[in-house]
């Protein structure tokens, strides 16, 4: 029993016990308990400052007549106000640390805090990319060690480290393919992409100057290998295949497909977004792949951070290794050395260009390497197995009430359901997902992949305990059962209990308001 500061024990009055605070009664503040409304930082500013800096006067002599004439318009707040603002905002977010985050294809696994600590060691976090290379040998050692992990786990001979995210890695892989084709004096413009692919695949192909040709899926959720082979020809540059694919299934005919692709003179790009299902167990290099990006922020658990930063190193086969972009890392008599100019590349190397300034996402490299060293090869393998086991456990536990279009066999690291179990209930995939929010869960990936109707893609990852999985299964099982029994009140208009109800996305797109602007009336009054 807790005591208040008058020493009186607090207790629950008999009369009020069990009665919910009526939703119709507005609070005076607009806040509701721990759920605080928070104004925009621009509405909170009042000319204070959160830093103490000297007020030095400067001469105009060296500014070339370019001194700013007007004010910028930034709000001024003290440190406690700034901290409160962002802490209050943070509490409106769902996070892995607060609950199971079953977003299929996104791999929301635990983010170990040791990784954060290591990335912040001054020798890594406070290191300039262009400091003399003699003073950055430890950083180059990290990159070299990570390269060794990535090439060993994938069974590929080379890796380009600079791509900044998965889609950037796809671009890097396709540009290497483009360069290899040009070096052969050929002109191949078409890229085959299965219809189940991530949107980034066709977007990247177009971004790299190729045309996109879609390959249909078979009723079993795999790419139609025969249709794919039929599309191969002298103008096909590459295929882009995700494996395990976006239905959470392994493309069993992959070796055969690779052989046909190579015989047609094309290259095999694999989208490595789902490498986390097979890392430490299957080497993509053994399957005939020529290039594959690895999302360090998925498989190797660098945090997603609300949408980045990521990192997308690309492993390359013997046929593509020579075309890796600068910078290149080489061992020399003086230690490790970065080759930053194409003209200095070692013999045989023909870098296609540069993906970005400097050397890639070092802050993500330190985190990923820390993750790998912590897990070890055995832990990486166990993580893949647990991820697959957990997804299959969900599939097995829910397929009696939810419809699993490919539920006859096992899945890999994610379980796919469609909306046929909701037919005739009036409940949509969206309603079902939003009802999960009221139950304290982040929804699964919805309406993707496009090859099934009303898709719901659940990826539990290896980070959930059995207790956590059982609780999640119980909630989804009950939701599905209620929906099918047409007990739909909890679905209509859900979520009811989140910081916001459903938001009007149509209005947001029709008349975009993309920034705060001062209220003209208020500004005039001031």
């Amino acid at each position, binding site marked *: 029993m807790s005591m208040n500061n008058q020493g009186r024990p607090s207790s629950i009055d008999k009369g009020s016990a069990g009665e919910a605070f009526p939703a119709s009664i507005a609070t005076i503040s607009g806040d509701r308990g721990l759920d605080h409304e928070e104004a*925009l930082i*621009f509405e909170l500013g009042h*000319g204070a400052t*959160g830093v103490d800096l000297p007020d030095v006067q400067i001469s105009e002599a*060296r500014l*070339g*007549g370019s001194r*700013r004439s007007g*004010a*910028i318009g930034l*709000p001024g*707040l003290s440190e406690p106000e*700034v901290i409160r603002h*962002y802490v209050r905002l*943070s509490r409106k*977010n769902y*996070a892995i640390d*607060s609950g199971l985050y079953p977003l299929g294809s996104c791999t929301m696994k635990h*983010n170990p805090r040791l990784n954060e600590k*290591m990335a*912040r*060691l*001054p*020798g890594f976090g406070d290191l*300039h990319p*262009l400091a*003399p290379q*003699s*003073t950055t040998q430890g950083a180059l050692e*990290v990159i070299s060690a990570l390269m*060794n992990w990535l090439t060993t786990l994938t069974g590929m001979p080379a890796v380009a480290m600079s791509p*900044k995210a998965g889609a950037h890695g796809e671009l890097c892989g396709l540009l290497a393919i483009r360069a290899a084709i040009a070096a052969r004096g050929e002109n191949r413009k078409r890229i085959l992409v299965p219809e189940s692919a991530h949107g980034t695949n*066709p977007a990247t192909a*177009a971004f790299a100057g190729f045309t996109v040709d879609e390959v249909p899926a078979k009723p079993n959720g795999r790419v139609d290998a025969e249709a794919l082979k039929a599309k191969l020809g002298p103008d096909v540059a590459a295929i882009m295949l995700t494996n395990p694919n976006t239905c959470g299934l392994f493309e*069993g005919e992959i*070796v055969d497909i690779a052989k046909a692709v190579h015989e047609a003179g094309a290259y095999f790009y694999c989208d490595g977004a789902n490498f986390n299902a097979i890392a430490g167990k299957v080497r993509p290099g053994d399957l005939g792949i020529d290039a594959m990006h690895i999302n360090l922020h998925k498989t190797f658990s660098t*945090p997603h*951070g*609300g949408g*980045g*930063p990521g990192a997308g190193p690309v492993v390359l086969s013997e046929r593509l290794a020579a075309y890796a972009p600068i910078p290149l890392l080489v061992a020399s008599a003086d230690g490790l050395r970065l080759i930053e100019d194409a003209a200095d590349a070692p013999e045989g190397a023909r870098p296609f*260009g540069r993906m*970005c300034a400097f050397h*890639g996402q070092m802050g993500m490299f*330190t985190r990923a*390497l*820390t993750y790998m060293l912590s897990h070890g*090869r055995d832990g990486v393998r166990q993580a893949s197995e647990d991820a697959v*086991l*957990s997804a299959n*456990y969900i599939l097995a536990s829910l397929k009696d009430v939810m419809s699993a279009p490919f539920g006859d066999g*096992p899945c*890999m690291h994610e379980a796919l359901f469609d909306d046929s179990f909701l037919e005739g209930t009036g409940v949509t995939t969206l309603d079902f997902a939003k009802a999960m929010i009221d139950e304290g869960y982040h929804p699964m990936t919805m309406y*993707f992949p496009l090859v099934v109707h009303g898709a719901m893609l659940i990826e539990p990852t290896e*980070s959930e*305990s059995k207790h956590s999985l059982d609780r999640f299964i119980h909630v989804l099982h009950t939701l599905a059962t209620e929906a099918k029994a047409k007990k739909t009140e909890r679905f209509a208009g859900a979520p009811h209990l989140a910081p*916001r109800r459903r938001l*009007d*996305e149509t209005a947001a797109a029709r008349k975009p308001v*993309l920034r705060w602007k001062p209220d003209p009336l208020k500004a005039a009054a001031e």
Partner: protein
Amino acid sequence: MRYLPLTTDDRRAMLAKIGAPDVDALFRDVPNSAVVPLSAFNLPDTQGEMEVDRGMSKMAARNVAAGAAPFFCGAGAYKHHVPSAVDHLIQRSEFLTSYTPYQPEIAQGTLQYLFEFQTQVALLTGMEVANASLYDGSTATAEAVLMAQRITKRGKAILSGGLHPHYAETVETVAGLFGPVERTKVTPGSAEDIIALIDEQTACVVVQSPDVFGLIRNLRPIAEAAHAKGALLIAVVTEIVSLGLLEPPGAQGADIVAAEGQSIGNGLNFGGPYVGLFATREKFLRQMPGRLCGETVDAEGRRGFVLTLSTREQHIRREKATSNICTNSGLCTLAFTIHLSLLGEDGLTRLARLNHAKASALADKLAALPGVELVTGAFFNEFTVKLPKAAAPVVDALAKKGVIAGVPASRLLPREKSAEGLLILAATETNTDEDFDALVAALKEAI
């Protein structure tokens, strides 16, 4: 393994529910020959936190951190003081371990700070709209050129010789697929005649200010000349703190601003992750790459925020998207926006003035050394000097003495003979008089 909650008993019970004899049965779609034993991987086994910490720390100790020496490197990445509150806040679980805010009802925290970030970037650059970030300044510049090619339906891009060479190479690699990319002559410390190159085929002119040698450029005449030919001006800023003191590109006629935001809120991190800032005029909104956050209302009429105009994006538009970007710089934008909120108008202005004062004082000291010539006349916090001998060996010699003297221009322009004697130095609020004295003394001895 400390990160894996399932016990052997759990796994057994789960397999029983699934009806599989063992976990390998779940991998039955993988060709048998493709499943390799653990011994196929010549890699270490699992380690405890203490052992991993020890190994990583040993590698970190082999580097010289910027804060551990008198330090003057810039050229696209800058050492600034980041207030303690920033790193504390971005490590809150709800920010660090959340995904892209696709479910707005439970992601208002991320969405609201993105909306605030977009506003801050628009204000700072003097533009009408900004996106929710790209990877970094160099990729933002490449995206800006692609966007200009789309808008003007022309291919040619003209890059100033003062554009950071890594940025120029990034643009050439990507935008070079869709039209000729021409780089003007490199003229350290002065403006090249870029206007003469603009013609009716030109999609855009790309000018960095302050440029890679630190020179502040006047963008107005270039904007006018570009617009007269129907081309766009892309302004690049690698040191965003400069906009606390200098006229923003938007006020000088820029159509797109691509900038590196690392200086505010983000550490050096050996080159990444950084945060690409991207702003433009409202009329070009629908050609913009990257995520956008917009204001709307919820079912009860309360203000809220959502990702919007996603019909430009890859997950909806696929091969017709304006860019292939998906993941951006989420947490780095948060660091940027928190630091800028702490600074506010007054703090940023003071910070910018302090940076200029420091650099100006250092320039005076170096220019007084015999044989050293100040190449950059108008600068913010970075300038270039010409040494009487090649700069790269001098920098290496000084590094051995514990002074990180700056970036030799030859590291960025190894084929440019005129760059050999040039040293690019940045001075920020983090530099002390003792740093200056150490540099001057060491440099005096080395030349």
